[in-house]
């Protein structure tokens, strides 16, 4: 059932109920009042008749006439003729026997009228006869030690007719009010629920995958707030979905790159192994084949090692401890110098002693990767610089964080284009594939470096000029 119908129905039920209650009590009160007036009139009339009859009867007795029963009928006749109106009747009962009846019949008076009747008291009752209502009033007195009852009967249909009429009128009125109210209420509830309907439709669309939705805020009530919230929700979902899509795309790209990268060594190894097992080869050919198998196998191993590290770093938190930069320098010199010497490259290291927060082993990996990249880009006999500096106050803030230490590796090698510089951290990206291959690169070194740097909340900046060299700068920030 629609909400608007629920609202309509409850309101209608409430309205009808209250109308009915008001009507009921009003009509009832009116009826009571009318009936009371009639009753009072009837009692006044009865009083009048009683006093007249008693007066005349008293005079008669005083005159010596003691035949009360006979004279009573005469007296009643007289009184009746003198003052009674048409709609009224008069009955006189003396000593439990009716001695007079104005309408000539034995009145159908129920005996209950006389119950608990005392001298001087009055009783009344309302009876229905021939679709008309009558009020019977009886008075009681003792005459000659006998009971004298004077019973007057008066028509009382007016109050009932009025009741009937009022009920009729009330019905019509109620019907009219309820009908017009329901039309009005329907319109109002439709107006009120229309934004809800719109919301409903919109959430349906969101479910179906359309997040490009903006609801106009419908006022400041709860519905308006809901609309606003739905807008916010749609936005959040859109962002999340885009993020997810982006992630899926990156993952697909990664898998595609990975399969491609892994296929070259695989093809080489399988191909040469196939040759070895199915051909008679000369010594040189044998050497070449086994060399290729060895070097490509090494490359696969390096790649899987780097990949494992990437996956590990993605899944695990790194533990940061204070690292002394001079320790870092000592360690780096120990590892890097022998490698660089093979190419007669000089490493100029000048690292200002300081303490940065980080994982020492991972930071060494970062520096070694940067130095290794510099080495690959450098010609024989060139120079690589490793410079570390504490940042002075007043340096540019980034993301409201203060830079505390900057470490740079500079080479004077081949450099690279801006486009290449933007992509060097992508997995499997190689600026010069054949050169990188020759050096046994897997295209993962800088991806790993970038990830480690990111996990240290540090930033990697690349400045490169083609033909002049490259500077890679790692900037550490104050940790909050």
């Amino acid at each position, binding site marked *: 059932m629609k909400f608007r119908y629920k609202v309509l129905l409850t309101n209608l039920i409430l309205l009808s109920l209250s109308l009915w209650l008001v009507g009921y009590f009003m009509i009832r009160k009116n009826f009571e009042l009318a009936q009371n007036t009639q009753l009072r009139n009837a009692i006044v009339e009865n009083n009048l008749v009683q006093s007249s009859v008693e007066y005349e009867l008293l005079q008669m007795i005083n005159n010596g006439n003691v035949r009360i029963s006979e004279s009573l009928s005469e007296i009643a006749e007289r009184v009746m003729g003198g003052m009674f109106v048409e709609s009224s009747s008069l009955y006189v009962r003396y000593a439990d026997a009716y001695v007079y009846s104005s309408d000539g019949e034995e009145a159908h008076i129920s005996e209950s009228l006389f119950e608990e009747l005392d001298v001087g008291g009055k009783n009344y009752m309302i009876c229905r006869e021939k679709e008309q209502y009558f009020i019977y009033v009886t008075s009681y007195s003792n005459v000659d030690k006998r009971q004298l009852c004077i019973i007057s009967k008066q028509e009382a249909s007016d109050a009932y007719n009025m009741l009937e009429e009022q009920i009729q009128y009330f019905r019509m009125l109620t019907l009219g009010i309820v009908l017009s109210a329901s039309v009005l209420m329907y319109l109002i509830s439709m107006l009120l629920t229309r934004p809800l309907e719109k919301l409903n439709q919109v959430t349906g669309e969101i479910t179906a995958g359309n997040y490009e939705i903006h609801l106009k805020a419908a006022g400041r009530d709860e519905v308006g707030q809901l609309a606003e919230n739905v807008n916010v929700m749609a936005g959040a979902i859109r962002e999340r979905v885009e993020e997810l899509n982006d992630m899926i795309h990156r993952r697909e790209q990664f898998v595609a790159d990975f399969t*491609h990268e892994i296929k*070259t060594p695989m093809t*080489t190894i399988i*191909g*040469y192994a196939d*040759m070895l097992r*199915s051909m*008679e080869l000369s010594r040189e050919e044998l050497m*070449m084949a086994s060399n290729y198998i060895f070097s490509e196998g090494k490359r696969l191993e390096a790649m899987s090692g780097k990949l494992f590290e990437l996956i590990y770093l993605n899944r695990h938190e790194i533990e940061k401890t204070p690292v002394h930069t001079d320790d870092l320098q000592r360690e780096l010199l120990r590892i890097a110098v022998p490698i660089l010497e093979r190419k007669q490259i000089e490493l100029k290291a000048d690292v200002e002693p300081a303490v940065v927060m980080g994982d020492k082993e991972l930071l060494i990996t970062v520096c070694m990767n940067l130095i290794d990249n510099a080495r690959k880009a450098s010609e024989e006999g060139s120079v690589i610089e490793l410079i570390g500096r504490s940042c002075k106050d007043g340096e540019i803030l980034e993301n409201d964080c203060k830079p505390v230490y900057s470490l740079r590796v500079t080479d004077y090698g081949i450099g690279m284009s801006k486009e290449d510089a933007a992509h060097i951290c992508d997995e499997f990206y190689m600026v010069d594939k054949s050169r990188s*291959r020759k050096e046994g690169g897997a295209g993962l070194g800088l991806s790993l470096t970038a990830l480690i740097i990111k996990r240290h909340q540090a930033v990697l900046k690349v400045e490169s000029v083609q033909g002049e060299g490259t500077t890679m700068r790692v900037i550490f920030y104050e940790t909050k």
Partner: protein
Amino acid sequence: MIQILIVEDEKPISDLIRLNLTKAGYGCTCAYDGLEAADILEEQSFDLVILDIMLPHVDGFELMEYIRSLKIPAIFLTAKSSLEDRVKGLTSGAEDYMVKPFEIVELLARVNIVLRRYHKAGQLLTFADIVVDAENQKVTKAGKEVILTPKELGLLILLMRNRNITLFRERIYEEIWGTEYSVESRTLDLHIQRLRKKLDLKDAIKTVFKAGYRLEEAHEVSV
């Protein structure tokens, strides 16, 4: 001699293809990027081009357009294995599309098929004084016809096309009988014996212990 151009930027793979094709008796030239390949194609004529897709400077698809205009058959040999790439490769005019890693025997077979389609491979296979006319199913030795059963002929052609390469039992069963190889079966050995006897190939068809057979040209084997 049939000349084949190998366009492949990975030196190890390029060497691998060159070595195998040379052994199978083809003349090979190597190019390591798209531009170099185009330059070589301008100067020399080739019977077939084997090319990679991911190449520096000019990629395989672009190079293919140029090769097509020269009306030289080409085979893509690439790591790109998606359906999309295969379709793109074949619709760009290549004769075949092979995905890395590949097996040498398969590469040789495909090269042979493409060359035959272009009527570049000789219809007659020769080995010493044996001449096989594969199309007419005729075998002659020193000018005299030798009668072979269809299976024997198939086996002989397979061996001659892959001379100097060990053919593994599994491979032979798959090619000739089209069934899975079972260890107990002596069918292959029997056929080999028949061939050796009928064509006097006792020394040329070498038994490779625990592997299979190899048809060897005595003068090419380096000692």
